[in-house]
């Protein structure tokens, strides 16, 4: 390759590299700005409005005049006493519990699938997701039938069981895609160095699978918080979660500003958690770099 030609390649690589960057960044960004960010801004604004006389939002203009200034009432109402914070804490606890149980159940399964012969792997993955092609409500009704005779229906146990059931694939799949890429040579090396099965797992496989655990946890923990159908159908008289509270504001109570406020506070809390988890993850990755 002549030097001129090489230079040409470098330049075109630079340009096409930039092009590639925009080609993958722009479409999803654009889509999400239009169909997520803009609509979400409406709701942020809604949390600062007053509820309408008969639901929805108070009209901004009455007879052509600007009538309702923005207000922090909904936020004041939230922080006015501890009851709503209590629900937040309780929901986070249930979400955490669900996530931990999901990790415990998903790990062996994901590992088994990742280490199975290629032919069998397709089938095993498919078997995980297949129950979810039926309807959520129907599966929950099946749980009602199963839990009823065990005297567990309408208890917190039923809520957690339902939550774990519904969210399990969101843990199995990320974990599986992570475990599937591990290099067997590493384990081999560990074995050559005299490490036993458990040592190999805890010192090699588990640290390497942390990114999978983190992304799976995000996809379980976060949706659990907003869920309301399961506490409603399987829970007893005390099993109120944030999801139910938010739904009540938008529907039963027709208080959109407070509903929007609750949703925003939840979103912020979740993103904070995610941020903290990422920080923690970065730290632990530093630890695993020694292994890789």
């Amino acid at each position: 390759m002549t030097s001129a030609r090489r230079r040409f390649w470098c330049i075109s690589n630079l340009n096409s590299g930039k092009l590639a960057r925009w080609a993958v960044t722009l479409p999803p960004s654009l889509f999400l700005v239009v169909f997520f960010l803009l609509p979400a801004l409406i709701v942020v604004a809604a949390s600062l409005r007053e509820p309408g006389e008969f639901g929805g939002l108070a009209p901004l203009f009455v007879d052509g005049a600007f009538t309702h200034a923005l207000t922090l009432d909904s936020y004041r109402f939230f922080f006015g006493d501890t009851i709503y914070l209590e629900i937040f804490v309780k929901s986070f606890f249930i979400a955490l519990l669900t996530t931990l149980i999901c990790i415990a159940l998903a790990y062996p399964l994901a590992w088994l699938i990742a280490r199975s012969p290629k032919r069998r792997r397709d089938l095993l993955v498919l078997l995980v997701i297949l129950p979810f092609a039926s309807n959520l409500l129907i599966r929950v009704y099946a749980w009602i039938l199963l839990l009823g005779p065990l005297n567990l229906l309408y208890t917190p146990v039923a809520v957690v069981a339902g939550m774990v059931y519904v969210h399990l694939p969101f843990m199995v799949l990320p974990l599986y895609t992570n475990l599937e890429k591990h290099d067997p040579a590493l384990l081999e090396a560990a074995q050559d160095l005299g490490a036993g099965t458990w040592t190999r797992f805890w010192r090699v496989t588990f640290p390497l699978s942390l990114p999978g655990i983190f992304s799976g946890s995000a996809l379980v923990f976060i949706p659990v918080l907003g869920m309301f159908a399961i506490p409603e159908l399987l829970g007893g008289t005390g099993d109120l979660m944030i999801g139910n509270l938010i739904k009540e504001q938008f529907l039963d109570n027709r208080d959109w500003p407070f509903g929007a406020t609750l949703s925003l506070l939840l979103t912020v809390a979740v993103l904070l958690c995610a941020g903290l988890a990422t920080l923690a993850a970065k730290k632990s990755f530093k630890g695993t770099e020694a292994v890789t």
Partner: protein
Amino acid sequence: MMRRLLLCLLLLVQARPALADDVLYLYNWNNYISDATVSRFETHCRCTLKQDYYSDNEEMLAKLEAGAVGYDVLVPTGNAVESLIRRGALRPLDQARLPHLGNIQAEYRNPWYDPSGHYAVPYATSVTLLGYNVDKLRELDLPTDTWALIFEPRHLAKIKGKVTVLNSQRELMAAAMRYLGHSVQSHELAQWQQAKRLLLRAKPYWAAFSNSTYIKDLAIGNIWVAHGYSNDMYRAQQDALAAHRPFSIGFATPKEGAVLAVDNFVLHKDGRRPDLALRFIDFMLEGANAADVSNLIGAGNPNAAALPHIQPEIAGHPAIFPPAAELRRLEMLRDFDPQLRRALSRMWTEVKVR
């Protein structure tokens, strides 16, 4: 040949929208009009009736509030009718085109939510009451005609964990208000606080808040007492009967009074076919057609001409068709201003959490 074929195709394409235009869009509760009635109407008007469903007034209101359009006829309950009127979401009815309007009983004409009768035509009613396992309650020697059954610990102690109440702030607090002798439309915060304390005292005895599963639970025998709607209780009763359960389900309006819900046909202001909508409403006002909903789901009926067409065991049930004296003890829910709504919601959250 080819050209003629193309012409035919073009004609077909053009003909289809013309046909599709004769469609009436009804936003309705599920199973609130029998298939037979729908096809009778479609033959009658030579048009198509398309239904979308909601399972709660609030779902319908939220969707409309956010700007959903395209529905000609809605079927809201009284309090929702008032809200829709006040928001300017409805189109006044041309009463001259409703010759069968006279079939509506006097008690249901010009209700408070539509005093001039310009907007709403009542279609079906239900009462929020208590359904119970007849045999079990007889065995335990418990009263069945009072709210005390779900609010008083002395009764509840015998049926702990076998009671469900509606997961609805409005309905459950209204029941407590009636038991305490207050109006369900009260604006007195102190009275609502009293109702909240009553609920908190009774809550440890309840199994769950349930809006839908109680029908099945009652019919199976999982629970013995349920707070719910008369048509649901009728259904639980029929289901238990059909499944040859070793017990029967009964339901009665508590003597302290209860909530009456009246569902109405109204026209949405953005509906494209008010002409078809009016024909539909008038068709549904005819006695035989109006009776269908009662026979289908055991709903009460405000239509006098419908009564002869309704099965006697439904028409004669005092909890479904309240006698005039009892009607006075029934109250409808009414929507409150935002401040009171927020205060009540706060109380309800407390009931759910504590």
